[in-house]
């Protein structure tokens, strides 16, 4: 089927009244939770997983995707008005967005962010439309060795790029992989680690694990840090940016679209990294970098465009290879598995209505977001009056009723509660639940393909390295580990100066990349403290970055797999 036929079919699916309604609900929920600090897209999607049981698979993905890219829009609003990123990918927006608001230009900042997001999202959707089918064709040729390599790369990059502490994340990923082995072994039929519990024969329930770790765990963690409700006093006027604003930011939007698209495709990529990379690039390209951090409109337009583009293009690896690029996509992957659909190279040919329907819904969703955001920013801002305690109580109620509705069994409520406690404890001890859940989702794919490769090769480990594709991927993984070990050791020697300008931007933001999909509220305080120092750090480092490698290490590292 050609791309045009596919798109036609996709719009047929997406314009169905039910699906249209769910796109709208998705982007609306996404915007709302993006605005509300304390509830990120990951938690929201986890909490809404039970709902997806009762609707068609395509509708479910349309809804969840809408929440994801919708939250990228919403996160901007609080970043600009309150210097409080409602969502992790919007942290960089606080640098210049909040300064613009202080200069009375909050309107144009939000306006250009909405326009940039729309353009970025649309460019990414077009890229997705064009790139996904050939990639899926290529993936049909993949053997189990390639799947092992790709899956392992995905887990590795998520642990390295998305978190503060790689070894801890790797530990959690290992735990996730281990938890995935609980239950019946698909190949031999042996039950593993069930301790005779019949409830565990099918393994841990993904929905319960995800809802507990992300949903309840995150709610508990955030409610512990009780915050006062924020009142926005900024008057919003002239939201539509001026002609000069457009001229100033057009380059940033164009670069942000392309950069965001490519970063999103990579495993471990996503909104957070792409927005950081875009900010670093814009600052480096600027004729007068000192303007950054003092309300440069490019510093808002670029990152906001990039995070939207990447949250869309992150669907490419999921829909074509069956590999979720980040934790949010892992949840969507899980939702599809629950519906009995395994995303992968066969998805386009076997379930074209899902593949093309979701893509088409993104065109529509981005249009809806633009229409929602420009006139309704003032309404969304009012949401900030909702106190996080109220939000937590109601979100928990939805969780409990929702998880009960899956099997009509109150046992599941206990499972969620227990995993919620574990998730909260993990957050408190600095262990990220993200890698655990991602590894948990990918665990059985990894194991099956690993064992198949072993059987096919007669037990030769070298099979992973001699095949060109998987060999390249493993070489890249070795490189990633090497680089991070070396830089880790150098850091431990007490050097306070991070190695690259990208890292400095991250350090200045008080975070080494917040995990994808987390709410930004917790990082609000360090941002507030560091925002004045950020630009100076960045400019100081600009001359050192003479290699032309764009932006941050995260970006440079991440680009590898695409070339290879």
């Amino acid at each position: 089927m050609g791309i045009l036929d596919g798109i036609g079919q996709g719009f047929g699916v997406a314009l169905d009244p039910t699906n249209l309604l769910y796109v709208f609900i998705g982007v609306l929920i996404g915007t709302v939770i993006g605005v509300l600090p304390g509830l990120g897209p990951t938690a929201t999607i986890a909490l809404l997983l039970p709902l997806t049981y009762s609707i068609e698979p395509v509708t479910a993905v349309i809804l969840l995707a809408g929440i994801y890219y919708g939250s990228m829009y919403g996160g901007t609003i609080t970043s600009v008005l309150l210097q409080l990123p409602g969502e992790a990918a919007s942290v960089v927006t606080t640098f210049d967005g909040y300064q613009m608001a202080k200069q009375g230009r909050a309107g144009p900042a939000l306006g250009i962010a909405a326009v940039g997001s729309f353009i970025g999202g649309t460019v990414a959707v077009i890229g997705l439309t064009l790139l996904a089918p050939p990639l899926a064709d290529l993936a049909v040729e993949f053997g189990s060795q390639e799947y092992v390599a790709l899956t392992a790369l995905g887990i590795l990059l998520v642990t390295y790029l998305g978190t503060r502490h790689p070894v801890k994340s790797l530990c959690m990923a290992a735990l996730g992989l281990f938890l995935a082995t609980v239950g019946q072994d698909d190949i031999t039929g042996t039950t593993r680690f069930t301790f005779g519990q019949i409830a565990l024969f099918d393994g841990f329930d993904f929905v319960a694990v995800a809802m507990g770790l992300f949903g309840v765990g995150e709610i508990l963690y955030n409610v512990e840090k009780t915050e006062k409700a924020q009142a926005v006093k900024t008057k919003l006027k002239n939201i539509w940016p001026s002609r000069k604003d457009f001229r100033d930011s057009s380059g940033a939007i164009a670069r942000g679209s392309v950069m965001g698209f490519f970063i999103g495709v990579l495993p471990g990529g996503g909104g957070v990294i792409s927005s950081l990379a875009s900010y670093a690039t814009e600052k480096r390209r600027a004729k007068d970098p000192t303007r950054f951090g003092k309300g440069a409109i490019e510093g808002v337009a670029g990152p906001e465009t990039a995070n939207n583009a990447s949250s869309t293009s992150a669907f490419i690896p999921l829909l074509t290879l069956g590999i979720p690029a980040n934790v949010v996509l892992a949840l969507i992957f899980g939702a599809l598995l629950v519906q009995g659909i395994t995303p992968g190279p066969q998805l386009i040919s076997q379930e074209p209505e899902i593949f093309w329907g979701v893509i088409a819904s993104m065109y529509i969703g981005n249009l809806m977001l633009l229409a929602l955001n420009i006139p309704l920013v003032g309404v969304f801002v009012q949401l900030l009056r909702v106190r996080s305690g109220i939000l937590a109580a109601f979100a928990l109620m939805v969780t409990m009723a929702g998880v009960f509705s899956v099997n009509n069994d109150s046992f599941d409520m206990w499972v969620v509660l227990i995993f919620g406690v574990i998730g909260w404890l993990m957050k408190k001890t600095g262990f990220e639940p993200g890698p655990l859940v991602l590894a948990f989702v990918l665990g059985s794919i990894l194991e099956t393909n690993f064992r198949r490769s072993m059987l096919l090769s007669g037990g030769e480990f070298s099979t992973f390295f001699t095949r060109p594709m998987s060999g390249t991927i493993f070489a890249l993984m070795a490189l990633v580990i090497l680089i991070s070990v070396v830089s880790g050791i150098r850091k431990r020697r007490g050097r306070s100066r991070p190695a690259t300008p990208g890292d400095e931007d991250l350090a200045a933001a008080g975070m080494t990349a917040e995990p994808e999909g987390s709410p930004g509220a917790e990082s609000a305080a360090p941002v507030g403290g560091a925002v004045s120092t950020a630009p100076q750090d960045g400019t100081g480092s600009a001359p050192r970055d003479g290699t032309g490698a764009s932006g941050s290490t995260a970006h440079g590292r991440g680009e590898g797999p695409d070339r290879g």
Partner: protein
Amino acid sequence: MSKHLYRLAPAVMLVLGLAAMYGSYELGLGELSAPGSGLWPFLVACLLTLTAVLLLFIDDPADYEPWTRSALGIVGGLAGLAVFIVLFEIIGFVVPAMLMLLFWLRLFAKEPWRLAVPLAVGGALLFYVLFEVALAVPFPDGILFAGTGR
């Protein structure tokens, strides 16, 4: 001693990893050319153990948040949630939901009674209508509303 308390988390991981290695070994590793059902869990458990050992030495104490009074509040909130589940099994959704919401709104949002009570009652009824009536989820029979006949 308390200075090293934070090493408890990696230690727990280490014990878990070793137990997992032993359990996988018991399942039978098989040969590399014919992997048994224990081989993969064994490899994964090795990774878990290895990272846990590393963390015992290199973990950053700053990662661990102090246990404060608000953490105690969370424990209280969790207990409330557990009570909710127990009551839910016995007397249905509406009344426990009201109590749970009220408890959480008072405990965490510190809402005054005049706001907390209407919010809790309204919220519980709203969720009841949403889940039981609109989505047809068969909640256990309640004392306030009888089950809807399923």
